[in-house]
């Protein structure tokens, strides 16, 4: 039987690898867009970014769940673990949004800078999450210059989180209904 900590390392490496590839492709796609060059690499970058993002996103729930399971006292007992959890769900939300909008795009349409920026931001969230994991297990990582993410967590009260969820759902529903009316 694989221990949850081992399983967490495996799934985390899948997530980090996939998101890193996706982030690189989003960045290069934006570079090509910025140069305004028609290149055969552009659709390649676009496809690779989204497929890698999808693969990373599919691995993400396993990484989060095994991470919670392998922590002896739970994510709520350390600001670093709490930040890891919040960053990974933020990155997951961004990735989900990016994939959904790409799926809904018309065939002749192409992602633009904002879309690529969201994709790259989700990669940044995941890499920062992984780096915090290094700090937690080995007291050493590439993000030593960010002490506040190890010691402080911006925690919302439960009611405010519920309000945020309700507001965002309402906004999405309003946008959806306005689009329907517009038709």
């Amino acid at each position: 039987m694989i221990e949850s900590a081992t399983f967490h390392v495996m799934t985390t490496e899948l997530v980090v690898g996939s998101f890193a590839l996706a982030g690189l492709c989003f960045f290069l796609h934006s570079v090509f867009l910025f140069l305004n060059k028609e290149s055969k690499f552009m659709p390649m970058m676009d496809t690779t970014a989204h497929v890698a993002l999808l693969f990373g996103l599919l691995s993400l729930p396993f990484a989060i769940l095994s991470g919670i399971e392998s922590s002896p006292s739970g994510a709520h007992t350390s600001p670093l673990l709490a930040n890891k959890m919040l960053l990974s769900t933020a990155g997951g939300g961004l990735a989900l949004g990016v994939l959904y909008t790409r799926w809904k795009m018309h065939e002749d349409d192409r992602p633009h800078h904002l879309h690529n920026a969201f994709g790259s931001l989700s990669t940044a969230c995941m890499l920062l999450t992984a780096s915090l994991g290094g700090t937690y297990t080995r007291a050493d990582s590439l993000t030593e210059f960010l002490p506040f993410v190890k010691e402080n967590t911006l925690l919302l009260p439960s009611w405010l989180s519920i309000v945020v969820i309700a507001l965002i759902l309402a906004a999405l529903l309003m946008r959806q209904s306005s689009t329907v009316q517009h038709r």
Partner: protein
Amino acid sequence: MKRKLVLLIVLSLLVPLHVSGNPGGVGNSLENMQCGGACHGDANQNATSNLQLSLQPSGTVWVGQPAEITVQISGLQSSHAIDQIGIFLLSSTNANGDIPTTDGWSILSDGMGGSNNYIEYSSVDSGVLSHSWILRSDEIGEKNLYVSVHHGDNSGTDAGSPFFGVSQAFSITVEPIPENLQRIDPDYEPPRSRDVGESTNICLETIAASNVVLEWREPSGQTYQLETTQKDQCWKAELPEALTESTIEWRAVLEGEGPQQTTPWFSLVSVKPSWEADETALQLQSIAHLAFFFGLVLLLQPSRRKHDEFKEYVEESI
């Protein structure tokens, strides 16, 4: 463009990276010997430690009773210039299944507020380092224990390399306990840590003991005695609170039909109250983050339909 891309990839692969294994340590934990050899690192990078390692129990090891196992590491300043060191107590050197708990031992105390077989010293001041674990064996017979270390070195030809060393096998004989000898209940678990400012109520369960006296000592070594009161099989006493982060030690002296029995010194670490958030609030905020950032991406993306209709209108007007 293609050449530049290939050149960039080749250059990035050629950039020499300084890689060192866990310079901040991995923290006290339950670890197999494999971690000392290759924990998040390549075992081939290891250099051999020249430290001298020894291990011995203090007194007879009775089955079901706590026993103090002291490891001694010498040559710390003469053999290697060391800032910090990790010490393993192992039951084998197979690289897996080496934790003493897999060989019939219970780790009652690691001397640092936990029950781990691997502990770290963040600084080393003298040439000899002694550290004690409190173990309890549930089986009678011969058992082997090993001590292992991993550390760095600030000087010499292998400076910066991870060093690893493992001792020979030290045989420990676990003996059956004489009948009617006063003793601690085999299921008793001593407290290991507490918050600063909290006193600790000890409830020591014993067998065949007619009187129990508790002794505790400060880090400076000054020893105090505490009288106990008996209730059923439990001898009660209260250890005073600590005002700062510190470690005190306590032990019990048991009177009975047999010769006086003294337990090993149990460490009790006082730590600052730990950080804790509301678990439900954190989970709800995680869901809120997921929903918020998902919604943000959707809401900020330009609407294709409006764009198309505007474009059609402009084209028709022209």
